[in-house]
């Protein structure tokens, strides 16, 4: 039975009241007395040498307060990559400096080489246009294979366009090669995982503030992780002491990964605020968002699946080129490696897995983690090649997956790609899926479609992902330069309500609703009396923020631990109040009772006592009721799922319509089913968007052709079907206190191959010799494929 309150109840999202009534507080809404405006000069060429920048005319223009160029930041640090990846030969990856403003060279269209600070936006834009930059254009490096073969470099100082050449697991390489060589059947597939633009509804925005009296700074910015931004600015880029820099991320209108990272504009507004002694605001316009937000995906892959004639998997071998763009964004080196290669065994007991990834610099926007981050790329490659193998071998697509699934009695299961899956039941998910999809009725539905002149296809898929990143011990071994714990402080106020300060940032996930449900249930109090505080480094404990489906599994666990400490201390206070031993105190439903007596005291009374400690045993118990916990998980969490969809393809136009989509997921225990369903819906929207609609396309000169909504197709409501979503039968995570797994990215991970598998199925039904189309499956691409198949 669904619960009507507490953990497992579908409480409505309390934050939606302000979002839906226009009462949210976004960075651009912040109006500060004396605020000025920053506007950036951005390169219109993809690659060029900055010969000169003449700011003389702009300096004298009305309202201009300051102008910065790359030279002003030549002596400060660069924005670093957060993960060190070593190549197969043991050499560390190449890490060219990523400056605040381009200096010497511009390396992608949109690369900022100057900034104007003025009284008004109009004045700043006019002055920015008056800055004359002489840029000697160089050949643009766009195609990855050409970048690796060529002798023109994005970063001349490293003398190569290859960031690293990584093997996972290098020791498995020989065995995998041998297994493939000896295998009775090998299916090979070459595919592209298309580049995506994140397109958060709210463009990036940053306000720098400097207080000369305290020599301190405040940065208000669109961030998914304010502490990480502060750490990067303090330790690497500007050297501002952490205790002199507050980073505040108020309401944030979507991130999807793109707002994890520190960007140069944040450093610029801080430096400018100090220089002019006034607040400096920069708000990206939509074009800047397209050109400079870290993009996602962009892998070119060859995958081979070796199997027995009966469909038993023997080996997966993958060679991938991963585009990192012009500069290394903070997580860009982790995404194609440890968030991708480690998942290349999928849900399967395959004994041999080897992955080679070459990361490539190009004259394009930086590429980094975007909803799913590496795991969609892994799932897409695996599940597409399995589908192709099943066709080649004449095996049912569900049967071939079931044959190779890790079975429920095999957990914990160490995959051939090195991860230890703690829990799961892939067959049970597939059972549920088969119940939902009415496979027996498919033939009739296909006939109905054909009667209308349409082709119908059924696509199937299974996925596993690793999220809730992550165990610091493990990621440290894998190259992470930061820890990936999180933190929570539970403060019980004197009047019995709670402020819970969390390291995770909520920008649509619903933390403000779900976290109080959990604390409320643990303390036996009304969730409405619990307020979540997040996004301000001066208020919250040092947390690592929100990404990688980690908020609940990691920060939520920290909050549980802190709440447990609250209960432990409250028991001591209650014991004192009731003149008993703390060992004899029971706590249930908000009441402290003494075993075997009718004596009791409420949580509220204990809270008040903690802050009015008259007659308090101060030698044993400190006043106050506030506890902090840091939580570092023992492992990733491993959500998994089985997805299916049916599509109709119009053979005359190539247009694909998704008729139905069924997502069965294992997210472990569910805290708020409605919010989890919403997360799946959002992920599916983005995954179907990737499969059918979205694609960032650069031309040979490095110009972004899809740089506006005129050419970049976002999914709209009428592109998407009603979904069937089922997450009722999860297997609890074994290593966190709530037994939860991340749900934020799953939909975007599991859906692209489901869609492509379905379209291939549809086209095959028309007798086309058809094995693959690269995403996005636009009408043009589908039609062209049909002409050549």
């Amino acid at each position, binding site marked *: 039975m669904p619960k009507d309150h507490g953990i497992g109840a579908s409480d409505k999202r309390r934050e939606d009241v302000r979002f839906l009534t226009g009462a949210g507080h976004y960075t651009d809404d912040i109006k500060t007395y004396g605020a000025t405006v920053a506007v950036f000069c951005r390169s219109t060429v993809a690659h060029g040498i900055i010969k000169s920048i003449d700011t003389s005319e702009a300096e004298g223009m009305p309202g201009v307060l300051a102008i910065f160029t790359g030279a002003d930041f030549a002596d400060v640090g660069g924005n670093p990559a957060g993960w060190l990846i070593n190549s197969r030969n043991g050499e560390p990856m190449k890490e060219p400096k990523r400056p605040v403003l381009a200096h010497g060279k511009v390396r992608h269209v949109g690369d900022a080489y100057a900034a104007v600070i003025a009284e008004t936006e*109009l004045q700043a*834009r*006019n002055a920015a*246009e008056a800055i004359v930059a002489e840029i000697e254009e160089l050949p643009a490096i766009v195609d990855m294979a050409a970048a690796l073969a060529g002798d023109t470099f994005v970063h001349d100082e490293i003398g190569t366009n290859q960031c690293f050449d990584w093997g996972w697991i290098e020791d498995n390489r020989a065995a995998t090669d041998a297994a493939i060589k000896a295998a009775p059947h090998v299916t090979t597939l070459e595919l592209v995982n298309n580049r995506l633009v994140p397109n958060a509804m709210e463009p990036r925005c940053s306000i720098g503030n400097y207080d000369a009296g305290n020599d301190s700074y405040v940065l208000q910015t669109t961030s998914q992780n304010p502490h990480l931004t502060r750490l990067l600015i303090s330790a690497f880029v500007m050297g501002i002491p952490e205790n002199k820099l507050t980073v505040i991320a108020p309401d944030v209108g979507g991130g999807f990964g793109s707002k994890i990272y520190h960007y140069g504009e944040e450093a610029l507004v801080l430096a400018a605020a100090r220089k002019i002694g006034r607040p400096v605001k920069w708000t990206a316009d939509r*074009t800047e968002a397209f050109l400079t937000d870290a993009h996602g995906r962009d892998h070119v892959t060859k995958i081979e699946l070796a199997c027995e004639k009966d469909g038993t998997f023997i080996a997966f071998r993958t060679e991938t080129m991963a585009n990192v763009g012009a500069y290394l964004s903070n997580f860009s080196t982790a995404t194609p490696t440890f968030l991708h290669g480690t998942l290349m065994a999928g849900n399967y007991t395959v004994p041999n897995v080897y992955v080679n990834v070459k990361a490539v610099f190009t004259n394009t926007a930086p590429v980094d983690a975007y909803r799913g981050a590496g795991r969609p790329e892994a799932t897409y490659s695996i599940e597409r090649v399995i589908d192709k193998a099943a066709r080649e071998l004449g095996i049912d697509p569900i049967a071939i997956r079931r044959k190779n699934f890790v079975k429920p009695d095999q957990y914990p299961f160490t995959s051939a790609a090195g991860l230890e899956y703690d829990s799961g039941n892939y067959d049970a998910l597939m059972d549920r899926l088969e119940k939902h999809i009415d496979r027996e009725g498919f033939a009739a539905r296909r006939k109905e479609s054909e009667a209308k002149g349409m082709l119908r296809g059924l696509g199937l898929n299974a996925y596993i992902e690793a999220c809730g990143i992550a165990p610091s011990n493990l990621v440290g071994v894998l190259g992470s330069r930061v820890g990936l714990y999180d933190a929570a402080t539970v403060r019980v106020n004197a009047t019995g309500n709670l402020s819970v300060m969390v390291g995770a940032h909520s920008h649509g996930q619903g933390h403000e609703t779900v976290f109080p449900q959990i604390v409320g249930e643990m303390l036996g109090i009304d969730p409405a009396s619990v307020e979540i505080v997040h996004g301000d480094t001066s208020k919250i404990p040092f947390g690592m923020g929100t990404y990688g489906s980690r908020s609940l599994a990691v920060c939520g666990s920290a909050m549980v631990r802190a709440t447990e400490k609250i209960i432990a201390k409250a028991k001591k206070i209650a014991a004192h109040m009731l003149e008993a031993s703390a060992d004899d105190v029971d706590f249930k439903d908000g009441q402290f009772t003494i075993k075997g007596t009718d004596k009791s005291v409420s949580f509220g009374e204990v809270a008040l006592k903690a802050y009015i400690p008259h007659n308090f045993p101060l030698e044993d118990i400190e006043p106050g009721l506030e506890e902090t916990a840091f939580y570092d998980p023992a492992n990733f969490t491993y959500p998994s799922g089985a997805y299916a969809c049916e599509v109709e393809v119009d053979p*005359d*136009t*190539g*247009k694909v319509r998704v008729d139905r989509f069924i997502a069965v997921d294992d997210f472990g225990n569910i805290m708020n089913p409605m919010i989890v369903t919403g997360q799946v819906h959002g992920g599916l929207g983005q995954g179907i968007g990737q499969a059918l*609609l979205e694609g960032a*396309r650069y031309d040979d000169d490095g110009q972004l*052709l*899809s740089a506006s*909504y*005129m*050419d*970049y*197709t*976002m999914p709209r409501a009428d592109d998407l079907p009603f979904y069937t979503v089922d997450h009722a039968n999860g297997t609890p995570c074994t290593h966190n206190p709530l037994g939860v797994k991340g749900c934020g990215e799953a939909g975007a991970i599991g859906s692209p191959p489901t869609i492509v598998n379905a379209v291939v199925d549809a086209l095959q039904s028309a007798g086309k010799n058809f094995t693959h189309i690269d995403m996005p499956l*636009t*009408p*043009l691409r589908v*039609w*062209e494929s049909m002409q050549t198949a």
Partner: protein
Amino acid sequence: MYAFDIERPSSIKDAVAALQSEGAQALGGGQTLIPTLKARLAAPEVLISLTGISEMQGVCLSDEGALCIGAGTTHATVAREAAVHFPGLAALASHIGDPAVRNRGTIGGSLANNDPAACYPAAALGTGATIITDKRKIAADDYFQGMFTTALDEGEIITEVRFPIPEKSHYMKFVQPASRFALVGVFVAKYADGVRVAVTGASEEGVFRWHDAETALADDFNARSLDGLSVAADGMIGDLHGSPEYRAHLVKVMTGRAVTAA
């Protein structure tokens, strides 16, 4: 945007006069011009808004039975008020852009801009409409002169469009996935004395008539009549969303569907 002044004349005469000034630019519903200004791709000194001119508003029938639409009439108004007399045109208007666009954008603005992917040019050419300006009447066949190019002189304002109402008509649009403009849009209109077929979105020359289809359909107004025909890919637009060959193919597909739906 750059700074600019704006004037709101209340008569065609005043608007024409205002457009004589240096750097003046007419502003209809602003659905193309305002985004252009925001991107700093145009810098008019003064915008002459045409939306306050009541004599350029509204939909009515002429004595000869033509549907007359004031050039300042929004797509939403056309969709509503043309529905009884000319459902094919009303349906076209009801699928331009989104509700926000339809409540601001005007028929005159669309025809004056002559975007090669706009919908209205297909209806105007596909019906042989008359474009009426502040100084003359221009037949649709003479009006459209290529992408973003029309017979309008500098400072000339479209005041009204007159559509001969067909016996049957339909506009079939295959949308460009991102913009949802017409990747290929075909307006088919059947009159007592013949059939007109106008195609938007496809050609580098802008809207055009597919004469072979008109001839074939005049004999038999049925999609089967198109069977032997084909459209050459030469001169078709090629971009991210459609190759010339794809657009040429879609012209035939959309024409057939328009005929069937008419």
